[in-house]
């Protein structure tokens, strides 16, 4: 119906999308939430379509979330896990693309350790490609479900103050959130140790706080990122205890917040490191809503992309609606 919100063949990231397109995805996700409440959690939308979940990095929750979304839309799903392969990653990627093309797969959901991998695949195969996380670049469905969760609880995104806390440097969740939220008119800030902050990050349209107290003072929403153990091992921060002491989201800190904060976390959580248990399980945490919304958002994306070639939109404009 609205041609200018059509997504094209792939969802590689939020950076190339317009606010209207993002809004269309969020709006589409709402009715899909209802399907997950039904006794029979299935609609025939993608019946007969084959979807491959191509995961080069380990992931439980994202993969399961996509799998549920795909199955609830009646698609046939295949999981390919190429984790821990010692074969040159890139070599496998090109050949994998060619194989998928030869098997006439309808849609591919890809997670890969190299930034740009989703675009790399999308450019080489005709199937729809959905980025489930490429290196540090983007994780669009995560940001979309984060935004849907915020919108559900606060009623809007425009003017909402969202601070992303943690290892921004290595985070694709942060980047996608920055793109998505700024396009939707939210005010975005980042907070974390300088060693884990990407250079020139403020040029993406975000504020930067060096102390978590400042972030809590300012924000309506905190999106708390997981601190990976490897970062400590690589020397970016001296210890996890130090990280928790100076950047952890703790109940004591939240009590000093001037207004109630919404707490988001992409999971899985390192309890006691970036977020304390009583916060994660507390009244302001919407982490479980994120999980529910995750399936709905992914269903919406699959629905919007499937078979969606822009040329068809032209044909549809002149076709009468069958009643």
């Amino acid at each position, binding site marked *: 119906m609205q041609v200018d919100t059509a997504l094209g063949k792939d969802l590689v990231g939020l950076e190339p999308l317009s606010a209207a397109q993002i809004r269309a995805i969020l709006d589409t996700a709402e009715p899909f939430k209802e399907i997950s409440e*039904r*006794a029979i959690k299935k609609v*025939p939308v993608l019946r007969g379509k084959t979807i491959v979940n191509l995961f080069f990095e380990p992931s439980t929750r994202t993969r399961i979330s996509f799998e549920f979304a795909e199955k609830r839309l009646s698609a046939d799903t295949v999981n390919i896990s190429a984790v821990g392969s010692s074969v040159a990653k890139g070599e496998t990627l090109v050949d994998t693309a060619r194989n998928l093309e030869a098997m006439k797969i309808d849609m591919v959901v890809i997670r890969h350790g190299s930034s740009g991998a989703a675009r790399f695949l999308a450019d080489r195969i005709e199937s729809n490609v959905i980025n489930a996380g490429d290196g540090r670049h983007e994780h669009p469905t995560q940001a979309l479900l984060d935004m849907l969760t915020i919108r559900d609880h606060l009623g809007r995104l425009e003017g909402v103050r969202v601070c992303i806390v943690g290892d921004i440097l290595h985070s694709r969740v942060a980047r996608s959130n920055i793109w998505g939220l700024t396009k939707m008119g939210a005010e975005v800030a980042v907070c974390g140790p300088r060693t884990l902050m990407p250079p020139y990050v403020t040029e993406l349209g975000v504020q930067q706080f060096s102390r978590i107290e400042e972030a809590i003072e300012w924000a309506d929403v905190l999106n708390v990122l997981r601190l990976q153990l490897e970062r400590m091992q690589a020397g970016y921060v001296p210890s996890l205890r130090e990280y928790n002491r100076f950047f952890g989201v703790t109940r004591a800190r939240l009590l000093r917040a001037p207004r109630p904060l919404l707490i988001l976390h992409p999971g899985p959580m390192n309890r006691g490191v970036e977020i304390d248990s009583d916060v994660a399980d507390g009244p302001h945490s919407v982490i479980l809503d994120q999980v529910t919304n995750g399936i709905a958002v992914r269903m919406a994306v699959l629905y919007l992309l499937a078979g*969606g070639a822009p040329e068809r939109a*032209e044909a*549809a404009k002149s076709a*009468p609606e069958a*009643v």
Partner: protein
Amino acid sequence: MTDQNRRLLLDERAVERTLARMAREIVERAGSIESLVLLGIQRRGVQLTERLAAEIERAEGVRPASGTLDITLYRDDLMAIGPRPVVGETRLPSGGIDGRVVVIVDDVCYTGRTARAALDELADFGRPARIYLCVLVDRGGRELPIQPDIVGLTVETTAGQRVDVLVPELDGRLAVELVSPAREVE
């Protein structure tokens, strides 16, 4: 091509009279109000359902259970039609539809495909004792062996024409109009 001829088929008063008659037919068929469920198909079927439920309440003193049904995800042409249509709300009344008498309400019956989609969707929700199809306008042109049980107005149309049911909530007035393309140059 952009010029169209609009002919009024039912004005506001006529629509109200027709709906009143349809409401009585529904009650006759259902037998009891308690087992009745009216489900309006998005979008205008929803407004018609509201009016039918109100009519039944006026006549019988009891308002029947009602809900809304969005059949977009069950369309048989979903993957062919370019940009995805917006999916509306589907909400069934509490108590569900198992063993009840369900009346599917829509504004116009044409090819019959919408009704087919609605039947498929209902099958995923449960097993009604009986399903009736109720439409304000039957314009002919069936492509499937489906017939409405309760009809407000029957009118013969050609493929190029369209029947518009207008409701105040969406269109600012209550009416039924026949839309024909402007006469083509010979």
